[in-house]
């Protein structure tokens, strides 16, 4: 969804004043970096960083038809979720390709909170508003609810020092905490491959929380570090690894598919699960310190066999890494391929994903 004028998040003025280098991202003016991508990346891997996520779409679905609606409109089962649980899921088209990837939190028997991608929010709202049954209500919370993420091995302790205690939360679970006269939702989720929380609270208090978290020691992080962190963790980005040309099976997201079916796109996706996909998302480690960038061809014996979806210089590995869709026969770890870097073929080895996994 393109907007004529880029929108500012509730943290825009604060971030611009704090040295954020601002860029346009899906119609939002967002910081790409503060101190520098590598420094921010390392802070999240070793300590704690804070991210503005106010551009993300936040939806609320409540009513007697909510469970049945989500069971049909997302490919992940929700009926067996307990209140307080969070699940990653995807919204598919009839052909099994991906409309969006989402995070669903169950608040109660018939009440769900759903985070969708900034660039897909209007599309999802258009698709869902006409499909939600009478008596079940879909609301766009994006303008009234703020969202930031505090990520890193020190994130939970840092939040605890601010009387935001999520220490006993399980991964992919949330709790609502009273804080300075308001309520902050702490969700033990994130997009960095590191421990931490995503925090939701009324938008008029999100600046106060951002400032408190920074003063407690979290490093301000921009979209640049968010991208290098999620790439190391091999977490897909809509528009790169996910779009209307790939299915969750091809993307390696079989865990997020309801094997019982009953969702839009189930025939294609369940058949692929059974017989295996023709193409797969793989991790590539480059032999040279040169970045395989989005759109670069993957080549075998002079023939293009796939395309890079994301790539970066991994600060943790000190090597250039990327992801690409290639034929299943070329997807085994150890397979040698080439990437065409603007006319120069550079050797790459298929490696198991994720590139980085935190120690438990």
């Amino acid at each position, binding site marked *: 969804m393109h907007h004529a004028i880029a929108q500012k998040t509730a943290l825009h003025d604060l971030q611009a004043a704090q040295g954020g280098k601002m860029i346009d991202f899906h119609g939002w003016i967002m910081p790409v970096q503060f101190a520098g991508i590598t420094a921010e990346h390392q802070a999240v891997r070793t300590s704690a960083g804070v991210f503005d996520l106010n551009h993300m779409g936040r939806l609320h679905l409540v009513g007697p038809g909510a469970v049945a609606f989500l069971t049909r409109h997302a490919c992940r089962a929700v009926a067996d979720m307990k209140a307080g649980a969070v699940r990653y899921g995807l919204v598919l088209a009839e052909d099994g390709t991906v409309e969006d990837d989402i995070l669903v939190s169950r608040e109660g028997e018939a009440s769900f909170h759903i985070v969708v991608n900034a660039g897909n929010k209007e599309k999802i709202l258009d698709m869902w508003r006409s499909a939600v049954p009478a008596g079940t209500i879909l609301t766009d919370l994006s303008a009234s609810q703020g969202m930031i993420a505090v990520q890193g091995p020190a994130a939970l302790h840092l939040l605890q020092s601010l009387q935001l205690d999520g220490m006993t939360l399980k991964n992919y679970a949330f709790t609502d905490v009273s804080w300075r006269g308001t309520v902050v939702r702490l969700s033990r989720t994130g997009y960095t491959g590191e421990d931490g929380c995503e925090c939701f609270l009324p938008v008029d208090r999100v600046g106060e929380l951002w400032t408190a978290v920074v003063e407690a020691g979290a490093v301000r992080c921009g979209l640049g570090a968010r991208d290098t962190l999620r790439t190391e963790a091999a977490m897909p980005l809509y528009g790169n690894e996910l779009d209307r040309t790939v299915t969750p099976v091809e993307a390696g997201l079989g865990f997020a598919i309801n094997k019982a079916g009953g969702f839009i796109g189930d025939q294609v996706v369940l058949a692929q699960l059974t017989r295996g996909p023709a193409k797969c998302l793989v991790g590539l480690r480059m032999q040279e*310190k040169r970045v395989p960038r989005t759109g670069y061809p993957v080549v075998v014996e002079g023939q293009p066999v796939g395309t890079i979806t994301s790539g970066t210089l991994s600060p943790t590995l000190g090597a250039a890494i990327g992801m690409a869709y290639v034929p299943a026969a070329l997807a085994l770890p150890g397979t040698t391929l080439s990437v065409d870097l*603007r006319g120069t073929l550079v050797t790459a080895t298929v490696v198991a994903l994720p590139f980085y996994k935190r120690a438990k």
Partner: protein
Amino acid sequence: MSTRYLPTHEWARVDNGLVTVGLSAFAAGEVGEVIHVQLPTVGVAVLKGKPCAEIESVKSVNDIYSPVDGQVVEINPALAGQPELVNQDPGNAGWFMKVKPSGADPLAGLLSEAEYQAQLAK
């Protein structure tokens, strides 16, 4: 000899009849950590304002434009192993190439230091 600039942030300096070309400190800071520099081959002709090299940073890939017409006579051999020299010392050790200029006044029409700084301030 004074340093002159292209508006696209390349610097040029004449020394012993050859024009040394590099990237401005401002641009080196903007592109971030440089990880690869694709330099032209010695002997090739370069044209003022046309791409002659490529600089890759963690963030992006950018063309380098030649500030002069001429022939490449030398490239910086250190950049193959130490591309970070472009960040550490863009005005000296991080130079890209030396060009034998084809014209008598090779730096004519390029920006002076003051003019370049004024462009950055806009």
